[in-house]
């Protein structure tokens, strides 16, 4: 029967090739489309890999009148410690860390200074990037970013002054400029809080308590991400006292909550496809394939009407002919699927060499643009290779659906063949 099926497929190769190509194209489109959608979702998480978390919380604040001394990164507002504790206690939160990002305008230079708890998850992530030296052992020790150190001839063990405080360089850390919360200098959180608390210019525009922070990183399991985000939104909506707008148009006092989903929205509108939409498009493609294959099957049955009559005359039961037809359809489905899979692998290899650009919201790695010759340099973009890969589950699901298309076509063919009476062959001779 297999040899018979192969011979039949070769005889009407053009028609069957159309089926194989249709199935192949649908397989290619479905696998590539789903892989692209997954890749963009995955890409949206990449900026978070530097912070050991997947939710970032900030609060919009006022612009200082006097740009000098220690200021909060403009225009962020302090977040009270009480809120940090509340968020830590939310069901589904695995871990959280908080930091304080400052702009320090000293008479001779400008520094971005971040106050970090070197023992929490963000601090540990930062410590892992130390290229020289070690984690600061005391409040008077700091980490300096490598590029900043090179530009300003800062060396390990050297003393530098920040807003009148003297610090010893304990380590050099490699943190690229486009990472979230990229800074020139990393100090102990409490030291940064003390510097901020004592800054008159800062206290003029915001009420800063010595335990406040201005950025929170929350690490949540992927399944709980949506629920925790909603929960945080609920908490911060009760604590805001919103007045006025920041220069970026955000409401002063309101909170910004960044998640992979919020990044996903700005990566690509073309491939920002929800799971439902992707599968809906896939379903349409599968139905289209089923219609084309069924139409060709109908044409084949009409052309082979006489042949099926002969088979019945010589003693083939309907089930024997059904097996023959199913075998022919299965061979086409398998050939089409393998063709589509091979094409998908090529497409994914090609796509994996393309890059995706992710704009990091300015507040997350704020730099005073007025200090730059070209203010646009303050905009930060991360460029990553598109993290696209062939998902075995998608391949398996596509195969199952393609087989279902084949089965549906088989049933349709069988239904037509069962109605055929062998005597009709003789009458139409």
């Amino acid at each position, binding site marked *: *029967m297999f*040899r*018979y099926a192969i*011979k*039949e497929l*070769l*005889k009407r190769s053009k028609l069957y090739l159309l089926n194989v190509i249709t199935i192949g194209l649908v397989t290619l489109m479905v696998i590539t489309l789903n892989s692209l959608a997954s890749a963009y979702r995955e890409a949206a998480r990449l900026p978070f890999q530097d912070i050991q978390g997947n939710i970032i919380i900030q609060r919009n604040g006022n612009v200082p009148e006097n740009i000098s001394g220690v200021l909060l990164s403009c225009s962020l507002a302090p977040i009270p410690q009480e809120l940090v504790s509340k968020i830590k206690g939310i069901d589904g939160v695995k871990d959280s860390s908080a930091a304080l990002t400052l702009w320090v305008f000293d008479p001779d230079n400008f520094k971005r200074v971040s106050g970090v708890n070197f023992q929490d998850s963000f601090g540990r992530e930062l410590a892992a990037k130390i290229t020289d030296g070690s984690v600061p052992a005391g409040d008077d020790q700091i980490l300096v970013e490598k590029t900043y150190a090179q530009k300003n001839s800062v060396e390990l063990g050297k003393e530098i002054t920040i807003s009148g405080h003297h610090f010893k360089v304990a380590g050099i850390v490699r943190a690229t400029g486009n990472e979230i919360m990229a800074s020139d200098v990393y100090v102990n959180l409490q030291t940064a809080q003390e510097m901020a608390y004592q800054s008159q210019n800062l206290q003029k525009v915001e009420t800063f308590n010595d335990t406040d922070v201005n950025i929170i990183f929350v690490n949540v399991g992927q399944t709980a991400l949506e629920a925790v985000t909603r929960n945080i939104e609920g908490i911060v909506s009760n604590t805001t006292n919103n007045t006025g707008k920041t220069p970026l148009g955000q409401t002063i006092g309101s909170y910004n909550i960044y998640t992979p989903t919020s990044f996903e929205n700005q990566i690509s509108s073309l491939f920002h496809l929800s799971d439902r939409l992707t599968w809906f498009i896939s379903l349409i493609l599968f139905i289209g394939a089923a219609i084309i294959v069924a139409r060709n099957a109908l044409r084949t049955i009409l052309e082979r009407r*006489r*042949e099926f009559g*002969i*088979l*019945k*005359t*010589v*003693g*083939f*039961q*309907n*089930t*024997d002919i059904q097996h023959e037809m199913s075998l022919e359809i299965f061979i086409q489905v398998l050939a089409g699927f393998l063709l589509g899979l091979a094409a998908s692998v090529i497409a994914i290899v090609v796509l994996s060499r393309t890059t995706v650009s992710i704009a990091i919201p300015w507040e997350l790695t704020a730099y005073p643009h007025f200090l730059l010759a070209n203010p646009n340099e303050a905009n930060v973009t991360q460029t990553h290779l598109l993290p696209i890969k062939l998902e075995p589950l998608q391949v398996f699901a596509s195969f199952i659906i393609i087989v279902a298309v084949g089965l549906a076509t088989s049933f349709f063919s069988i239904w037509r063949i069962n109605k055929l*009476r*062998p*005597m009709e*062959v*003789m*009458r139409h*001779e």
Partner: protein
Amino acid sequence: MSNIVAVKQLTKTLGNIKVIDNISFNIKDGEFLAIQGPSGSGKTTLLGLLAGLEKADEGNIVVVDKDLTSMTEDELAIFRRYNIGFVFQSFNLIPTLDVIENIALPLFPEHISRKDMFERAGKVAKAVGLMERLDHYPNELSGGEQQRVAIARSLINDPKVVFADEPTGNLDSKTGQVVIELLRKLNSERRQTVVLVTHDDKIANASDRIIKLLDGRIANEN
């Protein structure tokens, strides 16, 4: 000799026309029977009914002690596979299969090895003189050779009865004569009952008995 086919009060209507109208007759085991009649007299329909390819409206058809009128479509298919051979006017070979595969076609649904299948087909091919043409395709054969393939296919399961519908209709008279002689030879050597429909008086006269049909009824039997 016992009856291998027994037809009793058989009626078949197609549309509004009674194609077979209440006919009864018997065919003896090993008989070479010709059915004659003008076009539209019901010859092909009768052959289809006797072979279980068509369902009767009324009456009974008993072939090899089995009542075909009470059998399901699948039971009839199995019955045809082992008990009935059928030869068509236009050969009806499968164009994608070669000679040996066409002969072995009725064995395809059975779970037997390819070797055994072709061994059996080879024996029948030898009996009809096709050993030199086994790997040829139908379009590479003459009309007479194609009909011999069709006859070999009808014999692969050593059936009790072979039905032939105008087997010489598409052949020249000389080739037609060779085919009839082949059927005659099989009838006498293998003791297979042959029932053939023919327009040709010469062929009909060479048979053991002739049934003449007219408007679905037996007009003459001798």
